[in-house]
Structures are given as C-alpha cells and as structure tokens.
C-alpha cells in the first residue's frame, strides 16, 4: 500500500498515512485530487478505480471515507477488508466509534493503525492481538493524574456523531 487517507464527506482530511516518501507539496496535491475524485462518485459505484498508475480502493463508513492507494499487482478485495478491519479496530477501541472520536483522539487512530499496518503491509490481523498492544500502552499511562473528563467539551457538527460501524 502506498498511502491511506481518511476524509469526511465535506472533504476534510481526518487522517493521512504515507508509506512512500513524498514531499509535503506532492502529498497535498494528491490529497486534493483524490478527495475530489472519490467524493464525485455515486453511492452504488464500484469501490475501485484507476488513478495515475495506482489503484484506489475506497469505502464510505457513515460520514467518513477510507481510501487506500495500492499498486498494480496488489489485491483490491483484501484491501477493502483491510479498511474494514481497521474500522472494526477503531470501533472496538472507542466503543461505537464516530468521526468525532477520530478528530479528538487522532493520535490513538495513528497508534492503532501502526499496530495493524506497518510499512504499508499488514502486520497483525488478529483483532485481539492489536488491541492487546494498545491496551498495554494505555495501562502505562498516568491515567489518574491527568484524566479530566472530556464531557464538557462541546461537539459541533452533528453529522459526524454518526457511528461509523453498525
């Protein structure tokens, strides 16, 4: 896999992971082009498209688009399930994940992704094993000292409260 992008229906980038070295300028250009292309597609269309010399695999979960760029010889369907497994992992970790969880806890989304995919390849497909690694890390946090409840934070943008995974 060359990169993975998460963006909202409004075209806001929520997460970006690049597995090939590119300049910031190039990354922005790719993101812009791809977000536009994918958002322009209609719901029942197929999840794959050719783009430059790459294959794009994407799927929409509630308000969020998950979009992966893979190479010519890579397997589209298994990539679609990589996306799904990642959503499952987020869902399990956050407990009914929604876009807001990913916005406010973006670093966690990155950590989970790193346990699942590394260098653009699947590292661990077992849900249990991935979450175990993240839980262990959470146990190492100084939870008691700095944990303020997040309840008082106002969450605007009602569309992003939809759960990604039902």
């Amino acid at each position, binding site marked *: 896999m060359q990169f993975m992008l998460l963006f909202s229906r409004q075209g806001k980038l929520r997460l970006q992971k690049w597995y090939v070295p590119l300049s910031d300028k190039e990354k922005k250009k790719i993101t812009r082009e791809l977000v536009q292309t994918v958002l322009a597609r209609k719901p029942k269309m197929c999840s794959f498209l050719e783009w430059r010399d790459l294959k794009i695999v994407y799927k929409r979960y509630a308000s969020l688009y998950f979009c992966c760029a893979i190479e010519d010889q890579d397997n589209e369907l*298994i990539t679609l*399930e990589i996306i799904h497994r990642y959503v499952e992992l987020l869902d399990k970790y956050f407990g009914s994940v929604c876009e807001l969880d990913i*916005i406010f806890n973006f670093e966690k989304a990155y950590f989970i992704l790193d346990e699942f995919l590394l260098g653009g*390849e699947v*590292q661990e497909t077992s849900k249990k094993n991935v979450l175990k690694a993240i839980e262990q890390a959470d146990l190492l946090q100084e939870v008691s000292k700095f944990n303020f409840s997040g309840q008082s934070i106002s969450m605007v943008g009602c569309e992003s409260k939809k759960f990604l995974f039902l």
Partner: protein
Amino acid sequence: MPAVSKGDGMRGLAVFISDIRNCKSKEAEIKRINKELANIRSKFKGDKALDGYSKKKYVCKLLFIFLLGHDIDFGHMEAVNLLSSNRYTEKQIGYLFISVLVNSNSELIRLINNAIKNDLASRNPTFMGLALHCIANVGSREMAEAFAGEIPKILVAGDTMDSVKQSAALCLLRLYRTSPDLVPMGDWTSRVVHLLNDQHLGVVTAATSLITTLAQKNPEEFKTSVSLAVSRLSRIVTSASTDLQDYTYYFVPAPWLSVKLLRLLQCYPPPEDPAVRGRLTECLETILNKAQEPPKSKKVQHSNAKNAVLFEAISLIIHHDSEPNLLVRACNQLGQFLQHRETNLRYLALESMCTLASSEFSHEAVKTHIETVINALKTERDVSVRQRAVDLLYAMCDRSNAQQIVAEMLNYLETADYSIREEIVLKVAILAEKYAVDYTWYVDTILNLIRIAGDYVSEEVWYRVIQIVINRDDVQGYAAKTVFEALQAPACHENLVKVGGYILGEFGNLIAGDPRSSPLIQFNLLHSKFHLCSVPTRALLLSTYIKFVNLFPEIKTTIQDVLRSDSQLKNADVELQQRAVEYLRLSTIASTDILATVLEEMPPFPERESSILAKLKKKKGPGTVTDLEEIKKERSSDMNGSAEPTSVNSTPSPSADLLGLGAAPLTNSAPPPSSSGSLLVDVFSDSASAVAPLAPGSDDNFNLSLKTGLEKKNTITSSFVPAYGMFVCKNNGVLFENQLLQIGLKSEFRQNLGRMFIFYGNKTSTQFLNFTPTFLCLNLQTKPVDPTVDGGAQVQQVVNIECVSDFMEAPILNIQFRYGGTFQNLSVKLPITLNKFFQPTEMSSQDFFQRWKQLSNPKQEVQNIFKAKHPMDAEITKAKIIGFGSALLEEVDPNPANFVGAGIIHTKTTQIGCLLRLEPNLQAQMYRLTLRTSKEAVSQRLCELLSEQF
C-alpha cells in the same frame, strides 16, 4: 473498552481542537492557530523548563495543526526530547511527531537515531516496538545506514518477542525498499525463510511480505520459500473455519496470509518437485471449489475475503500458465462473476479476464463471454467498469471477432465518457489495422473514428491511415472516393480535412473521371473548408493545391488565382505566406516535366510498427492531462524523427512537426523552402532523395583511397585548407577553398539521420566540364550533378545520411572536373563525425553521478590529458561542448571550473549513452578529458574528436 482510554486526558488539546471546530470561517481558524502557535513558541522558548506532560501536549497540538494542513517549522527539538522520556505516552507522542513530520535535518536525524538505538537496546518490547515503527514510518537512508545491520539480528534472535519480530520484519522491508544496497544478505536470510513455519500466524503474516519483496530481487536465495509457502497455504485452506481462532475473518481462514502466500508463489515458476506441485494444484482446486459452495455468511466481508483469496489464486494460475484445466476453470469462475450483482466483482472479473485472454490455453474460453462483455459496455453505470470492459474487448480481439468488436467500440464511442475516449480511439485504430483483411474496412473505420470523435483522434492515428493508404495501392481509389464523400458533410472535423486534403492531393486523379468529383469540384470542396481550419491544416491544403496543379493542369489557373490572392500572399503567418509565394512561383516557372518530378506521388513509407501501438503502451491508465500532452509531444517528434525521408523545415516553428509530414512530398525532393525562387530550379536537377547509409565496415579501404588520392593530386592540393576539424562542433561553413573551387556545407542532424547540402562554387570565369563529385564509402543513389558548372555559378547537392552503427572514419568526397584543358582531381573528408548523431540529455547532478558510477568498467572510460591549443576561455569551451552535441550540465560538477556534458548517440540499431567531463588546469594550460560510454570504441572516438577542439 473503558471510557478512560479515550484520550490521555490532554484537556488543553481537546479544548484547542474544539475551538478550531467552532471557528466559523477559515480566517477565524487561521487566527486561532496563529495564537496557539505564538503561545507554544513562547512556552518552548521560556526560561521555565517544561515538564514532560506540557511538552507532550504542545507537541501534540503542533501535530494537530500540521495535520490540518499548516506548515510547522519548530517543535522538532522538543519532540526529540520526548523520545528519551521514560514515560511511555510521552515517548509515543514524540515518535508520532517524528514519523509524521520527518525532517532531513541531519543534526536532528542523528539525535533521533540515538534515541532509537537506546530503545532498540532497552529489551523492553513496547519501547522496541515504538522504535521499529518509527524506522518503518520514516524509512530514510540515514536510518537504513544506522539500523539495516541491526534489525535482521533482532528479527531472527531466538528470544525476540513475537510482536517485535513482526515489526522488525516489516521495518526491514521498508528499509529494503528505500535502500536495498544497505540491507546485506547473509545468514539471516535462511532463518527468515523458516519464519514461514512459525507457530504465530501474525509473525508468518509479517514475514511473508518481507520474503516476497526480497525474493523478487534475489529469487535464488529464497527458493526454499516455495515449498514452505505451499505447505503453509495447504494447511490454511484445508483448516476448518474455526481452527485459526482470531485469524479467521468472517469464516474465512487467514485471508490476508493466504493472499500474501499466493503472491509470494507468483515470484517463481511452477514448483519443479512433483510432490510440491501436486500439493499446490490441490490447494488451488480447493480454493476454486470453495467458490462454488454456499456462503457461510451473508456479510459482504465474508464474500470479499473469500473472493480476495480466489482472485489471488487465479492470478497465480495465470502466472504459471501451465495447467489448462485450472485456466479454464478460472475462466469459467470469472465468467460467473461477470454477471454478479456486486459491481466490485464484475469489475475485478473483467480486469482479471484481461490477463487470461493472453494465455493460449484460455483465449478461446474468454472469447465465449463476448456478448456479456459487450453488454457490460452498454449497461454498466460506472465508468470504471465500462473502462475494464473496453480493455477486455481489446484483449480478447482476434481475426475472428475483430469486425464485431470494432463495431461495438465505435458504437460505444458515440456516448463514451470523455475521460476514456482517446484511449478507445487508439484501441480501435490498432485493432482495425491489425485485423484488417480488407483495407476498405480499415479506411471506413478510421474515417468513422474521425467523424465520431474527431477531437480525440491524435496525430498518430491520422498519420497512420495516410501511411497505409500510400503503401497499399489497392485501397487508394477507394480512399479517395470515401474521403471525398465524407468531406461533403456540411460540418466535418478538421482531422478529416487533413486526411482528405492529403489523400486527394495524392490520389484525387483516381476519382476525377467521375463528373461528380471532377478536379474543380474536388478543389472547391477542399477550399470551402480552408477558412475554417487552423494554420497547420491550411499549410497542408496549400500543398494539396500545388499537387493539384500537377495532377489537373486544367485547374492550374484557378489554383494560381487562389495562391495569388492577398489573403495568401500577404498572410500574417510566415509559413502560409512562404508556401503561397513559393508554390505560386513554382507553378509559374517550372515546366510540366519538372512539376511532375517535384510533385510526384509519395514513395511508400518503410514498414514499421505502428506508433499508435507505442502510444497506447506508453499510456498508463487515465493519466493526468498534462502527462498525456507530454506523451503526445514526445510521440509526434518520434514519428517525424523516424519518418524517412526526413522532411526539412526552414523555420523551426511550433507547428513544424505537423507541417513536416504535410510538406513531405515537396521537401522530399526539394530544398528547404528558404531557398530563393531562382535556386529552386537549379536544385531540382539534382534530387538526391536516397538515404545514404554510412558503411563503417569499409574504413580500411577508405583510408587507402584517401592516401592514393592525395598522392595523385596535382597543383590544387597545395592550397588545401584542412577545415575538417572545425566542423566537429559546427554544421555550416566552408569546407574547402582554392583558387578554382569553393565547397560550402550546410547540414543538420536529428537522431540517427542527417542531411547535408553541399554547395560547389566555381570561382573562375570559365566553365568546369565533366564535373563529377563521387562519394567514397557512401552508397548514394543520386542523380549526378550537372556536369558543367558555369563560371561564377554555384550548384548544390543534397546528401541524406543515416548512421547505421558507430564509426571512426569520415566519408570522402572525391571531385573530378576539367578546367581549361587540365584534369583536376581532389579529395576532401566530409565532416560527418560520430558526434553529429548526439542528442543532448539534461540530467540532475545525482543522476549524472549515478550513471557515471555505472559506467565504471575500465573499457568504458577513455581519458586524455593534453595541452591547450587555444586560449582557455570558459565561454568558448561551453559553446564548443554544446556544439559538439551533448548537453552542457551546469551545477553538476562540485568544482565549478569543470565542464560536464551528457547525451545519447543515435544509430539505426542502438542508442549509446555518453557522459563527458572536461577539467581545465589553467596554470599548466592543460586539460583532462574523460569520456564514459557503454561502448569502448565510442568513448575512444568521441574523446579523440573533442580533444582536438581545445
């Protein structure tokens, strides 16, 4: 999962994110961010040392700001500090920041590498994991230098935890991708292969990716992985759906691992060991069988995972291309998917069948699905799926179904999406040519293409139809009739005017007998389109008109009137004006015999591969528009470059490419249009249109004849000016001069072809008689020059040159004539030197030195140290290197006083890349010249030639 794990309680961060989300406008957001940046900056610069938590929080805010799309130019140091924290969360945020915002700042990389080194040595698996993730995420060369030796050890050590092994495997994979030279193969490789047997499926999953990548580059070294992969795969596909516990995904056992193993097997041919091969065949059959079983779940994840494995298995079957039974089963399976209700499956089935169509075992089986595919083209609602259908039709096309497929594609073209029209046009053009039994069908098809999608018909396509019509006389009359009819349409595409103009100009006479297409009607029809066309097309039409003057003398005056009109003779466009002036003059002064010679029918084009095919090959998917434009430009110049005879244009205008072809019938036998009218007639008597190959094999003979020639020579040789050397770096000038004769040269070269105009001037007031220039070593089929050269007159001769292979010696021009009763004989070397076939190549410093290193074989390098013969002036030196033909590369050599150049020598058969470096030593008044090319003789020759210049 407990709510407590949602976030690490960085309240400040949450508030900031919330603020940003509450911003009503982009301006407000930027304002809020700038405020935060100022705050963080002051905190980082403040006297008070920040605690780890604050540092983490601020670094995290910076990261958030960066991910919003803003630039971040500070905070790196603080992030690096976090790496050495003992608190896991601080370390983790530090690593995340580094992974996302890599900076090639070498000072920083050193610090980061230090922190990574400590964590790798910590033996704490979570810390090691973070460090490995960071290396895998950044993957820079510096990191490869520091850790490529260390990571294999971690990977194969007996006491390494499984999760660390997984990270180490993929980390190594990433480093191998970026810097393969830094990852040493060694003992560890055989142990890595055995990870395929590991008990932990996660380890196997990660290791398989690594092994696949390594095996692609080092197949011998990883050969043993084949049998291990087969047995692992076999165990997976035969396992019950619950055996693999958490590695079973929606009732499919280890789909990711299965796909990876099947990928790995695609690095190798079918296994030789019959036992392994049998086992693999069983696996593949099992996978195909499972596809027919009822699904174990209705969830799409189940079918996706199952089919992912199935498609990968089919890829392997196609890759092996050796089991007809499996290939046909695969084809049938894909045939089922062609009508599946899931769009994704239809898409993939079309894609996969494309590769299946090229196998001899399954080509016929694929063809049985033609109706389904045509139907997909008509009914699919998604353009990406229709695109796949077009690809498949193209792949399954052969002589038996070409008519049907081409008809369907043309049909589809009428409504096709703009994004794929050009590609369809190319495909139709290729198929129509490849499978044409009857060339009238071909001509109809291409004209239809132009009618339906004229804007998408590139130059290659209409050039090609003209080439074919010119080369096949059985279709010329039909082509003329058809274009004539097509041109009747009130609105026809400009490309049709081009094809029509060209074909009628050549073959209009074939239909002129019919009163409905009499010469005048043909002319009026074309001329009625003239005003609607662009300059290049008008230029082409003017050439058609002058051809008409020859074909149909009865309308000569009509055409002359048109040429004479102000809108032509005073046209603002210089090319049009020039053509009008010259054609008018030509039609007025030349006799019918001369006209017939000059405006003769085009000779057949040499047979060659269609450039359309090359264009399609080059066209990788629906690239961006600019990419396509570039390809187009490249292609069209290729086309003209290889068009023989080469056309010559006096003024290199942007439209030159197009005009080149349009004007070919004229320039083929005529001088460049820049010659003045009176010269035209002179030159027509000497139409040297043959391409003269240099024969490098006969060098020796050639030297001999040169010597004898010199010995025999009489008085004239005394004033022989050895001007040969000065032509190495330039193309025009006086080659030879004595009291009787002056020989001037003008020449131009393009790729492996060249054309030289030789001017012989009689300096005396007496006629030269029996004037005969002959070329030694050149195979010239040229009419002799007029044997008398009047006193004070000049005659011109054209020599076409083709560089067949690299050569050392220049050809000799021998001239004999009688002057005032004495017989004169002289020989001069023609300055056609190897460097004339240079095409400059621009490249970066990095590329240059990389290639320089690649050409390090002692035979490829030739060096010469020599004394300067001329003043050592940098500007003159630069001009000479450019004149020599190579590109002058600035800012490549670390020493600015040195000169480096690069270029490619084009011969008919090969292209030879050349790099050169010239190092002047001003004090010693010496130069050192180094040439590196892939061919010793070329290095040697270029070095000799260039050394003489300084």
